[in-house]
């Protein structure tokens, strides 16, 4: 089954079968946001515990395919314990990797110079790079990230 290896890397299958930071956090103090992929019925709930502009803890629950679940799991390991500014930057970097970065200009957001995408800068997330070749699955990969952004916003508002 050639071609598929790009999508289903070892590490993806590992995070899919053994998701990190799976579960919930009590709200409050945590905030929770829910994301849907109307395309396939996937849903994800992201719990964030934020203190002093830092993402103290994150938990994820939901239903999804290997791509969305491993992306969620990889995301938690990438952002847990980081200052919020770094979390935001990670989101942008991830979106750039998903070839969605031109959006940040389109929607009139501030343009942040991205770091180059490579193993050193994005770590294990690099495993998700193969998704770009399967455009339908990009939404799967980005679902947890978009939900993270929503959760960050509602945390700021509350």
């Amino acid at each position, binding site marked *: *089954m*050639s*071609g*598929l290896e790009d*999508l*289903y890397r070892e590490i993806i*299958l590992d995070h899919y079968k053994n998701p990190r930071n799976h579960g919930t956090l009590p709200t409050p103090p945590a905030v929770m946001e829910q994301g849907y992929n109307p*395309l*396939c*019925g*996937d*849903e994800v709930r992201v719990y964030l515990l934020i203190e002093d502009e830092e993402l103290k803890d994150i938990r994820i629950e939901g*239903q*999804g*395919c*290997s*791509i969305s*679940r491993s992306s969620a799991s990889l995301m938690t390991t990438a952002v847990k314990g980081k200052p919020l500014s770094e979390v935001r930057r990670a989101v942008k970097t991830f979106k750039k990797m998903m070839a969605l970065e031109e959006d940040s200009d389109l929607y009139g957001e501030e343009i942040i110079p991205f770091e180059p995408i490579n193993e050193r800068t994005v770590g294990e997330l690099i495993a998700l790079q193969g998704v770009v070749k*399967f455009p339908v*699955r990009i939404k*799967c990969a980005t679902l947890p990230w978009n939900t993270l952004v929503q959760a960050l916003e509602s945390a700021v508002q509350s």
Partner: protein
Amino acid sequence: MANELVVELPDNDKVLDAQTVKQDFPIFKEVGQDPFVYLDSAASAQRPSKVLEAMDSYYHTTHANVHRGVYRVAEQATNLYEEARSHLGRFLGAPKPELEIVFTKNATEAFNLFAHGYGRKILGPNDVVLLTKMEHHANIVPWMILREQIGFEIRFIDIDAEGQLVLDNIEQQLKGVKILGVTMASNVLGTLNPIKQLTEYAHQEGAIVIADGAQYSPHLPTNLQVLGVDAYCITGHKMLGPTGIGALWARTSILEEMYPFLGGGEMIRNVTTEGFTTNDIPHKFEAGTPPIAEAVGLSAALTYLEEIGLENIRAHELSLTSYAMEQLHERLGSEIKIFGPENPSARSGVISFELKDVHPHDVSQILDQEGVCVRAGHHCAKPLMTSLNVPATARASFYLYNTESDVDSLVSALVKTVEFFR
């Protein structure tokens, strides 16, 4: 409630030869991938050359806007369009084919037209619309949108473990119901519902019945007069026709009563700066330039289906479905769960399933690498997904051009998928 569906099936040797049928569909030769095992006809079917030729020929020789032209070409276009209307009416066994068919852009618009045209007319805040948990969103969301505007209650008939409607207490469930909306065949479970009997019960309680034929009429002979329903929806692209066309059939008396829905040209009798009066049925509901070439294409598709024979199509799909269920159980054992009725004759040619520990999205992705096209997702039936307690399913669906060898490809690809994720 036993399913009263009895289709006289032909002898085995009259049943169609799918390999020959396939030749009529250019995509099986021209698509850029090999193999191309298309098992997604429940989402949209492919088209035989004759349908495309009919549309091209229409555009090459006859195109003009309909209904308002005095010159010959416009008159011919109008005739072709109106003949397509009658043809669809006859295909469905409508009592007055030329009066009762309203062309829409798809089945979804047909449901919206019925909800806003008829529902708005007869429903008040204390009324009840009864649907089923296996309805497609097309027969759910329009009612919810209307409910936001005028208020009423929407209830759902439950389903049992085998994906059959729970109808034991149907008389109870129908109490106070003004409109019953129910699918002829579930696009997820394949379940064929006992519409004729349900309609009898509904009529006893004074309810009007709208049936969703989107997954039925492409595959089994339809006779509206036998079914007894009051309204019926179909969509062209699932029955070998082009995209861009669907239809609402409803009894003349209902169409007469219905509010207009889309406003514009052709649906009016007169317009002044003060107001408007409506045209006769069915034109009252066809605002603007209709899908003319699409109607011509749909009519060609109906001719094709009639020539092959709906009984033959049903027999063929039934045999494929039986074979597929057998093979899936045999080769995948406890790795697979198939939703819906166990008895193939209680279902259409649709098989939704779940592979243990593999998400349907991943199933579909891996199958695609093997050239096998199946749909993965909620199939626009989210309440059903909730009811089945799954986020999504994978679904293979058969049509007249599918062969046993297509089934074999599906089964082998699934075996590989299980291995890949083990």
